[in-house]
């Protein structure tokens, strides 16, 4: 008697859980679905109401979009160079720093970690004005380097990797490679990096996304049109020149979202797997 009651409330719970999850999934998808559909519709069609199926105005929207000097391919390339460089710098040097913090016993180790915790708190905007002025005097505006190099010091990535290393690093491995005569850099590159791969992959994805989506720093540093990143290009769509061209606005947005969708659905498995592996198991 009691058992069947329990079972009943359990299945009601399950229904609620599934309904909420499906609703949340729909809320994630629908805005993008509308965007892709509207990218193929003319402005009058869009203003006349919703549609679930694509229309036939993709090409005319495309022409209007390109007419107004919107170059998504260039933007994609620029974004890719910056985000790729940023990710490599952030992941490699953060792993190095984290390893230095965990594997070696040095005098300033604890103070340095406290220092990293403190600088983690510094919002990027705190230094933005000085950073801009500094780069301006240095002649590095409209250059990708000031967008890439600072990633070598990524406190949050170091923090995360240190947590991971603390849980996974065994002194035996380090000792063993030393006995085999491996240098410290060699053992880091050949032995520790593979062990840290789950953490590296997860962090790489987060860093790449953060860099790809960054608007603030590129916006203040890059003023030449051929240096624009995708987010800056998107901000152009908000401008007056597209005021009534809803079809091409949606198309422009779709073009910036499409590569991300491909990237994401190819890598999502690794994100979830990376997250699962990132956990500590004894």
């Amino acid at each position, binding site marked *: 008697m009691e058992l069947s009651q329990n079972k009943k409330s359990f299945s009601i719970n399950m229904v609620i859980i599934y309904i909420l999850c499906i609703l949340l999934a729909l809320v*994630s998808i629908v805005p993008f679905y*509308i965007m892709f559909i509207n990218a193929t519709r003319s402005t009058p069609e869009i203003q006349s109401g919703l549609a679930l199926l694509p229309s036939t105005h993709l090409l005319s929207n495309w022409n209007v979009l390109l007419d107004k000097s919107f170059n998504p391919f260039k933007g994609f390339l620029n974004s890719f160079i910056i985000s790729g460089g940023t990710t490599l710098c952030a992941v490699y040097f953060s792993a*190095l*720093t984290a390893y230095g913090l965990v594997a070696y*016993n040095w005098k300033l180790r604890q103070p340095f970690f406290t220092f990293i915790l403190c600088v*983690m708190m510094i919002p990027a905007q705190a230094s933005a004005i000085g950073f801009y002025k500094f780069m301006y005097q240095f002649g590095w505006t409209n250059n990708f380097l000031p967008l890439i190099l600072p990633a070598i010091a990524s406190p949050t990535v170091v923090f995360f990797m240190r947590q991971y290393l603390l849980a996974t690093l065994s002194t035996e491995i380090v000792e063993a490679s030393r006995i085999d005569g491996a240098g410290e850099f060699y053992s880091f590159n050949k032995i520790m990096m593979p062990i840290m791969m789950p953490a590296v992959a997860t962090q790489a994805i987060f860093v790449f996304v953060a860099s790809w989506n960054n*608007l603030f720093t590129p916006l203040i540093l890059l003023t030449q049109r051929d240096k624009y990143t995708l987010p800056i290009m998107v901000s152009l769509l908000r401008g007056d020149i597209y005021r009534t061209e809803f079809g091409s606005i949606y198309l422009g947005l779709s073009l910036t979202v499409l590569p991300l969708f491909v990237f994401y659905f190819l890598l999502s498995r690794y994100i979830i797997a990376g997250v*699962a592996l990132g956990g500590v198991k004894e």
Partner: protein
Amino acid sequence: MRRKGVSYAKYGYIFCLPFVIIFLIFSMYPTLYTAVIGFTDMKGVIPKPVHLLDNPFQNFRDLIFNNETFRKALLNTLLIWIINFIPQILLALLLTAWFTNNRLNIRGQGLFKVLLYMPNIITAGTIAVLFSALFAYPMGPVNSFFHLMGWSDAPIFFLQDKTTARGLVGFIQFWMWYGNTMIILIAGVMGINPVLFEAAIMDGATAVQTFFRVTLPSLKTILLYVLITSMIGGLQMFDIPQLFLQGGPDNATLTTSVFIYNQAFRGAYMYNRAAAASMIVFLIAVVLSLVLFYFMRDRDAAELKKMEKMMKKAAKAAPREV
């Protein structure tokens, strides 16, 4: 056999050196520089000789006491962050509890995780412009939908209403970030020693009890991380308010970052005022994080660390005697 006294300590310094150098050049110096600019009269596009102000704190005083827009920006930032964070952490915790509960064994978890995280991967700027198009007036998808459902007779100008606009910016932030928070929390739960859960089951704990007594306390550090990163992210909120409504209507979605950007790179190029505003935001971030660390510090861990130190000292002393 006596071990050769090789010290590896220097590698600790070498491995951390690139971080330090880059940090000093690209973060420390610009921050100090920003602080200095905050005390000067630096403004305008054309470089002019820059002087320290007679009253060094003039910019700060003007901002705090005479600049209503700045105060409004601070308040907006706080409001929007709260609107976004409270539902975000609650929903993320709820989903984490469900997804990690073996007894529920939710099917399609992988797919749900992928879909719920998805908005986070899309450029915030794109999402801001997308939402401004979706909420377009007089005819946009949302208005069409309201009309279809019979919820509204006439088109609604959503983005003109201050409360709605602020709520929408908060909602977009929430929508973009709860999946990310959930994934981090799930990773945290995965990291908890499974023995703890087994013990809880053996002791006959319910799912709710297990969540509050085992999962949550073990997640403390991760929750701290989520809270701090969300706070810093909230203080830097720029893309969505800037591209969604350009801080409008009537400055209702003007955040501190949009304010700083407008002061420094629009119109009057008031670098000094923008720098002073950045420093105020910076100080707020510092104070908030200190408070957080204080309240969430783990007393047991501190005790343990002390013990560990003593043990280490003892261990160091031991080999010498041999």
